[in-house]
């Protein structure tokens, strides 16, 4: 590639940044020229975030088109990472100036001094920096390497670890599997939990005992869930098939049939997280039934009508919250269950993204590819968390 190409990249990025921020500034009636200048700087910096460490390798002439496309994508993401926060920051500063009453909640009764809070927060900040922020950055660096533990050397491979994922059938397969298993855990888990919570939330005799008996699996670990269901689903001596065989005359290859094995993982996971979901639905229903008591308008509606037209919508914030936490559970915590129950098999039918990372990075000792897969999963989690924060906003409005 030519020496001017990097410069060209940043100039274009600066232009895009300038136009964007100038437009945004105009909308909040601040000088577009100022916006243009800040935007140009932010765009240039943003486009360099990934390209400088990568040394513009995605645009080298011997690289394929997909690498170049990926490079453009990285420039875009880098720009978004700088330009959008700058935009948000300036907007909030401007808004606060215009409307000084905003913000500053819970400031009444504050203690004096600024050193003390720093001391209180220091351990948390240090630990988070060293053990979360630093490894996150290092994961990005690792993802550009071909590296093995115990090897003589490591090689810089640009974005190969990412672009190779696109054509990796196993990886795409594990993407689909993760979505499928997660969706099933969420739908089944929440439906069952809601049904049970409808029975258990009421102030009937012995309610506390029922709740304890329903919620305790929360304290069981994913590993133990895997171990116990390994016994229940075992082809030899497995009691589930024994029961199915006696009652329906069928046997299911829970651990060796690729269509059944994901269900083994799903059932074990639903069982393990059921208590948690029931707990939240009971809390939600108690609030809802209070609301219903207050709302006279629904008199005369029958149980089903009341449930679908009133209860379910009122529960939606909590449902949304549980969808997110169960998705997170399905993404990460099922690892222990899968490792003991199916080991990702058969036919990779239970090899979720997280399990795949472990297989690639630890079992196969291919650190760079595992790091790249981690980052893709990371992006998914960020997406989920953004949704979670949106909904947590709803929850605050609804609850308090």
């Amino acid at each position, binding site marked *: 590639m030519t020496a001017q190409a990097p410069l060209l990249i940043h100039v274009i990025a600066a232009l895009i940044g300038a136009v964007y921020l100038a437009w945004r500034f105009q909308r909040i009636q601040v000088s577009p020229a100022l916006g243009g200048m800040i935007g140009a700087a932010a765009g240039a910096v943003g486009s360099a975030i990934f390209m400088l460490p990568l040394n513009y390798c995605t645009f080298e002439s011997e690289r394929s088109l997909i690498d170049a496309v990926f490079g453009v994508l990285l420039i875009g993401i880098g720009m978004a990472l700088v330009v959008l926060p700058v935009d948000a920051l300036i907007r909030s500063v401007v808004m606060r100036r215009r409307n000084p009453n905003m913000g500053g909640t819970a400031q009444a009764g504050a203690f004096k001094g600024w050193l003390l809070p720093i001391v209180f927060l220091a351990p948390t900040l240090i630990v988070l920096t060293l053990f979360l922020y630093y490894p996150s950055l290092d994961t990005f660096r690792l993802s550009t390497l*071909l*590296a*093995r*533990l*115990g*090897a*003589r*050397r*490591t*090689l810089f491979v640009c974005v190969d670890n990412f672009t190779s994922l696109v054509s990796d059938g196993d990886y795409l397969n594990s993407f689909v599997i993760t979505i499928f298993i997660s969706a099933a855990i969420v739908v089944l888990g929440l439906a069952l939990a809601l049904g049970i919570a409808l029975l258990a939330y009421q102030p009937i005799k012995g309610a506390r005992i029922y709740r304890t008996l329903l919620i305790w699996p929360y304290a069981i670990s994913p590993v133990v869930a895997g171990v116990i269901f390994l016994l229940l689903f*075992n*082809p*030899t*001596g497995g009691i589930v098939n024994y029961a199915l065989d006696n009652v329906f005359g069928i046997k299911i*290859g829970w*651990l*060796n*049939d*690729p269509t059944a*094995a994901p269900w083994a993982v799903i059932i074990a996971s639903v069982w393990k997280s059921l208590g948690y979901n029931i707990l939240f639905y009971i809390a939600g229903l108690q609030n809802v039934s209070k609301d219903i008591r207050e709302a006279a308008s629904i008199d005369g509606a029958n149980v089903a009508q009341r449930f679908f037209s009133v209860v379910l919508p009122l529960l939606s914030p909590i449902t949304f919250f549980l969808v997110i936490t169960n998705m997170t559970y399905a993404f990460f915590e099922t690892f222990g269950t899968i490792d003991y129950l*199916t*080991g990702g*098999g*058969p*036919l*990779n039918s239970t090899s979720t993204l997280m399990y795949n990372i472990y*297989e690639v990075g*630890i*079992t*196969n*000792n*291919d650190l760079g590819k595992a790091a790249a897969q981690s980052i893709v999963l990371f992006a998914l989690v960020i997406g989920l968390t953004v949704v979670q924060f949106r909904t947590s906003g709803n929850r605050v409005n609804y609850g308090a």
Partner: protein
Amino acid sequence: MRKSFLFVVLAAMLALAVIPAFAQETVDVPVWIAFTDENRLGWAQDRAVEYNEMFPQYNVTVEGYANYEELFASTALAAEQGTLPAVVQYFEVATQDARDSGYFKPIAEAIGDRTDINGIAVNFDDFVGPVREYYTIDGVFTSMPWNTSSAIYFSNMTILDAAGVDTPPTTWAEIDAACELVMALETAPEYCWTFPNHGWFFEQWIAQQDEQFANNGNGREERATEVSINNDGSVALLTFLDEQLAKGYLYYSGAQGGDSWGTVDQAFSTQQVAMAAYSSSDTATYTNVGTDNGFEVVASFLPYNEVTGWTGNLIGGASLWLVDGLSTEVEDGALGFLLSINSTENAAAWHQLTGYIAVTTSANELLTEQGWFEENPNFSVAADQLAQSTITTATSGAIIGAFPSIRSVVTQAVDTALLTDEPVADVLAAAQEDANTVLEEYNLLNAE
């Protein structure tokens, strides 16, 4: 008065605290093995206790890992931390990785020209020929043989007899024929036979057909740069397995690699199947499970492809590797333990307990003297199979980098061939490509 009493008490407590510190000044010798069962882990731990009693200056501790694959991964992790133990049990496919990583020191090099370690005699010549050769790499006796085995075949003769099959099958065609009779029984088992989907069996079955696993003389002349798992032998193998599955003869548990062993044990011991390919490592378990549950178990050579004939089988099993960079005391403690574990009595007892090949000539003589092999014919099958094998490049086994990862590519290919309708040749071609990528990347990082 009171003060001096207090002083005496304090002094006494101090002395008590110090004395054991002197007395316990032992050298820790941690040993990691890939067994967790009472027979094997328990046996090794008992040997460690004996050894520690004999040599109080050492404290050998034996820790068990769930399987070879996990131990292999843990070793790489521990090496990264600098927390390797003194001895690691590494399986045969990890040889190239062991060679490249520099984690280990050849046994012969550590012993040097000493003829004994703390009075335990060093006698490499006592190891039986094929075993000594197998563990000699680049002309140096490298790792200590311990659990050496071969892949053999176990038949539930009670079922076979009922079906009118007098002798265990020796070829694939005979398996098929026997299964037809077995599955026609009124009291037919659920399936006819099974095997662990472990890379080792794929390797055994293609070596029988004299097919190499990798280039450059199976990686023995020069560093292997390409695998050759897509060959006539492997196509024939997967086609055969696929047909057996389709006929309902073959039971496939879906478990791969280290997880697959247990599923076969379960199926055979509960008579869910009549026959099983397995490692000779469990000859004792397999024989006893029959005795305990009222059926007769006969071990035989691993059946081969009658079209190509039988060239020979691979040695398998793991060996004990000495970690490099130990202090002299720890190294000598470890060497002494490694030698004592293969003493005539121990080697013989280990064989009787499990079915692993008795690795020394003296142990074999002792066993023969006791009439062991005559009374227990199942126990000589693996050694006979190796002795009758023709040594070729193929039957010597492959030495290639990242072999454990390549094995999982192979077991996945077997998995795919059995569980999908994809043509066997396509599956193998894809697997070969994947395996070559793995190997290429490994060599990029490790080749000189």
